[in-house]
């Protein structure tokens, strides 16, 4: 058991990480997240266009969008309360924190021990609460509609996500993201059948949480079918820019979490410069492949009826529980 206070445990790690170089690398990871997230969205959009036989928008289109939105004035609804104005910052902050505590480059990051995986799910949940409340705040029917649907998706997706995380936590005997990833990445190569179940479940949850096609359609203009888009219809200017950026960060965070849990090879163990420098191209390659697969799945699927979304997420939950059971029954050594 990896106790937090034992040698090599959380507290020891935290002390070691509080070095200047550790802080620098943490900063690099955050900057990288901010910069790469819109690029990932742009890449996915480009792949979608190619797969659908359309000419693709430029790879940098999301940056142009953000630039345009930051320059625009904010138009506020008459009934908007301070909550409505605060929500974009809260959501953006939550997503940035999530990106900071998910090991993207190294498992040895100063912020990594601040929140374990359960707290990570909580941070993502907090963002959901804020955006749903903000959607209902101005009192338009679409905002309420979207907020309601988002909570439906959320309350089904969160347990499935937790189950996935418990499976990985059982393997590494810790709920700390860094420890889990380190255990999975740097131990002898072992095939865990439980991780296969958990991986599929995580993919399902990621699609639902990021408003991707089988559950939601990020490209739709039909206000009555929207989930995520319906919630942000009333936002404009820099508020909208922050929300769009946060959505990109969310996709990036989920991608990195999935890659770190199920394809952790290449993530540096310590703060060695060479290891970290190697980790960046590896991450890029993984994101490029992941983004293409995401676009592929989105292209061949139609959106499910909204009342099929519980079935979709129910399947995810079932697979996650199966992964947990497989771990407990087959993989635990006596």
């Amino acid at each position, binding site marked *: 058991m990896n106790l937090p206070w034992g040698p090599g445990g959380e507290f020891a790690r935290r002390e070691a990480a509080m070095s200047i170089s550790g802080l620098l690398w943490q900063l690099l990871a955050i900057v990288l997240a901010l910069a790469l997230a819109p690029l990932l969205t742009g890449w996915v959009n480009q792949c979608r266009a190619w797969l659908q036989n359309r000419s693709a928008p430029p790879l940098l289109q999301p940056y142009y969008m953000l630039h345009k939105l930051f320059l625009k004035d904010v138009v506020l609804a008459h009934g908007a309360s301070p909550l409505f104005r605060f929500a974009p910052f809260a959501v953006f902050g939550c997503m940035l924190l999530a990106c900071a505590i998910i090991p993207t480059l190294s498992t040895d990051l100063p912020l990594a021990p601040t929140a374990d995986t359960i707290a990570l799910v909580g941070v993502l949940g907090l963002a959901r609460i804020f955006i749903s409340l903000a959607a209902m705040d101005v009192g338009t*029917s679409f905002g309420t509609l979207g907020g309601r649907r988002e909570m439906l998706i959320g309350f089904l997706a969160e347990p499935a996500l937790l189950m996935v995380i418990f499976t990985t936590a059982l393997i590494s005997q810790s709920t700390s993201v860094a420890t889990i990833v380190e255990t999975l990445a740097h131990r002898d190569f072992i095939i865990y059948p439980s991780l296969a179940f958990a991986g599929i479940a995580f993919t399902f949850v990621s699609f639902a949480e990021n408003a991707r096609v089988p559950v939601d359609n990020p490209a739709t203009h039909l206000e*009555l079918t929207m989930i995520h888009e319906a919630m942000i219809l009333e936002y404009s200017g820099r508020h909208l820019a922050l929300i769009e950026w946060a959505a990109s960060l969310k996709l990036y965070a989920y991608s990195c979490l999935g890659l770190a849990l199920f394809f952790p090879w290449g993530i540096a163990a310590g703060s060695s410069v060479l290891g970290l420098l190697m980790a960046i191209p590896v991450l890029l390659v993984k994101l490029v492949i992941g983004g293409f697969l995401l676009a592929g799945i989105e292209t061949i699927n*139609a959106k*499910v*009826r909204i009342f099929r979304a519980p079935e979709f997420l129910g399947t995810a939950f079932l697979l996650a529980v199966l992964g947990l059971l497989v771990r407990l029954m087959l993989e635990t050594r006596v």
Partner: protein
Amino acid sequence: MTMRFHAEPIEFTRQPGLGAPVWAARAADGDDLMRFAVSVHRHEGRLAALWGEDRRQRGEGFRLHCVFALDEGHLWLDLDLPAENPVYPDLAGIFPAANRMQRATRDLVGIAFEGGSGGGDARPWLRHGAWPADWHPLRHDAGEGGGFPNDPSDYDFVQVGGEGAHEIPVGPIHAGIIEPGHFRFSVIGERVLRLEQRLGYQHKGVEKLFIGGSIADGARLAGRISGDSTCAYAWAYAAAVEAACGVNPPPRALMLRALMLERERVANHLGDLGALGNDAALAFGFSQFMRLKEDWLRVNGALFGHRFMMDRIVPGGTASDLEAPALRAIVDQCDAIGREVKDLRKIYDEHAGLQDRFQTTGTIHADLARELSLTGVAARATGLILDGRAHRQGYTPPPPYAALGVRPATDERGDVAARAAVRFAEIFESLRLLQEIAVGLPDSELCIEFAPVADAHGLGVIEGWRGEVLVGVALDGAGRLARVHPHDPSWQAWPALEHAVMKDIVPDFPLINKSFNLSYSGHDL
């Protein structure tokens, strides 16, 4: 030639010409009209159109025009109303489709309906407060209008009560770039209890623009009522004028008109099938069908000089001809597009996710379709064999369709999947017709000149891609247009959409709406 229907006393006279069979007569009084309407309804007929005409400048009063449809053809029944206090019995209790047409007639011409069994809906329909209730734009003494204070009035939507029931107002401004219309949903959670539409945001006074124009002016305007149905409207208008003036267009022109109408049908069905895929988030289908539609429209542009073939059908014939190479190009393109659509139909049929969205969504049954006087794709998707181009018991289609032997496409499910299936089947049938027409185009002149006949009137009926398009034309003493009423099939289909969405869920509405794809412009006039 005269005829009586269902042993009713009213004697009808057959309208001359080559157009769809139309029988015209005049009712003696309101009771006569009511009796006949009841009889039509009992024999599973439908109400095809209803409009009013101001004839006071000729020393008469007002005239109400009703067009009923039976298997034998269309029955055009007039009713003369006095100049002072023109009132006729409410037909909405017999034909629910009459409700909006009667209200529009009251708004525009100022002839009222009361009594009857329709309950007398007092709300305006096309009048949104841009002009006062006592001013009627289609009266000859109305003047140009304008200068009225814009006074948007509250519209009395039907309220649904009960615990948890609330309303979702949608439009007229939408998130996407589409035509304006307001939809008021009463829902519990996601379940739709009731939908009520409010239309008329695109009212632009088309009927008033017709008045006083020459026949050629009218032809141009008729082609611009609804851009997606320009051929259907142009042909219906031409057929009405030709019937009024006793002119028979030459055979080559009739075949070319059919060719254009079928090309219009294919173009719109291709677009709709793509849009149906897109609304279910299958963007692949959208881009494929849009590519095919674009290829199709480019050939239109190359052959006719206009991508939508506007102004190519004119009273007396057609304005453009096709040479042998053009006909060969059409045959080749039909082959190529047919192969691709066959592949795409396979993809649509076998896509589990898409079929799950399509099937059992937005269902209407044949009984309801008949009750609402529904026509076109939506009616055929409930199993009704209702196609003005095809033979059926007691009905012979007008030339050139009589000789082409059109096989109507039907499907009995009545849901979105059925409407998609009917569109696929109609594309294949239209491609076959196009090839048949292109191969067997008869030789004759294209267009015959004719002089307008004073005080004549005629009705044209054409099976457009959306459904039955009617145009009624009346000429004045100088042979100019006294009154033209274009009628879009959407008048009957919009209320059917209200029924189709009931008991479905809110996020399925866009898909159901798209499967009907109704016209705002053609309806709002």
